[in-house]
């Protein structure tokens, strides 16, 4: 099997770009390269990673200015053509601002920046991003954000739930959903969602920060594994750009 080509966007203020590159290349042994936000074309990539950080200093709103970077036009084209896009933390915020994912991410209910390991329950395993997980599996993955409270209007929320697009939900280590296990006040404890076609994922937890077993926790590898194996799974092959 040929290597999957990861393209990792870099904005001024991105700070998880190297972690994502390391996870894709050193840990998962795939191809990875950085793509500067001023580029107008993604070039030859299989997966676009929009990494975490504080693009443009989070000025105005998180992700609000990054969405107008030249590269984002090509990301939208790539996503609309079925290409796999994963937005992590600030990347999730950018995906909602650019309209590839519904809803918005607001200030944590506690008003505090929260940086710790959380547990997320895998709600859907028939996605490109979770195919390597067992149904209901609980992953331990770190979060690090001040604006991660997912909100959407009632209709959007119903559609997300009804269509099975809530992929990750904050939970207790045993997989129970509770307000205590919800670190930021997200509606329905939502930690990650996909778009309607299922090829774009946004999530607040950082799987790339939990991908190297040397660091004591490799639960996040499952997301990368799922993505890589989705390129050989018949179900997703027709989605290839």
């Amino acid at each position, binding site marked *: 099997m040929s290597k999957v080509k990861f393209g990792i966007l870099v904005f001024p203020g991105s700070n998880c770009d190297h972690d994502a590159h390391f996870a894709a290349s050193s840990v998962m042994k795939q191809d990875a390269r950085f793509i500067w936000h001023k580029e107008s074309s993604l070039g030859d990539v299989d997966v676009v990673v929009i990494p975490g950080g504080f693009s443009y200093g989070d000025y*105005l709103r998180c992700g609000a200015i990054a969405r107008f970077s030249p590269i984002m036009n090509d990301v939208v084209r790539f996503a609309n053509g079925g290409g796999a896009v994963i937005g992590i933390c600030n990347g999730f915020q950018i995906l909602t601002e650019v309209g590839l994912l519904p809803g*918005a991410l607001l200030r944590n209910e506690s008003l505090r920046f929260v940086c710790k390991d959380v547990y997320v329950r895998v709600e859907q395993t028939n996605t490109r991003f979770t195919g390597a997980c067992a149904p209901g599996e609980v992953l331990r993955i770190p979060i690090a954000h001040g604006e991660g409270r997912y*909100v959407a209007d009632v209709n959007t929320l119903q559609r997300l739930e009804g269509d099975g697009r809530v992929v990750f939900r904050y939970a207790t280590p045993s997989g129970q959903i509770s307000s205590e296990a919800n670190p930021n006040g997200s509606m329905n404890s939502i930690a990650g969602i996909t778009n309607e076609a299922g090829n774009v994922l946004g999530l607040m937890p950082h799987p790339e920060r939990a991908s190297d077993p040397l660091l004591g926790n490799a639960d996040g590898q499952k997301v990368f594994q799922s993505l890589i194996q989705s390129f050989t799974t018949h179900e997703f092959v027709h989605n290839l750009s």
Partner: protein
Amino acid sequence: MFKAKITVTLRSSILDPQGKAVEHGLHSLGYQSVSHVRIGKHIELSVGVDSKAEAERIVREACERLLSNPVMEDFSFTLEPLKKPAHVKG
């Protein structure tokens, strides 16, 4: 030339924890009659066109496209004519 003063606020249906925290602080100071505190953003900018209608169109569009996020925020603005800077003698 017009000066626009723009207010962006979270939609009333959306929880504003910052507003709640400030309200709590105000109650601690004894202002028991104060309620419904909401925190928003104030943005000022100048628009270099002659017609007020055109200035309004530009500001509205800027609010819709960048300055506010219609998913979670509402905006309002006022426009005032700006006098051209007076000629300064050297």
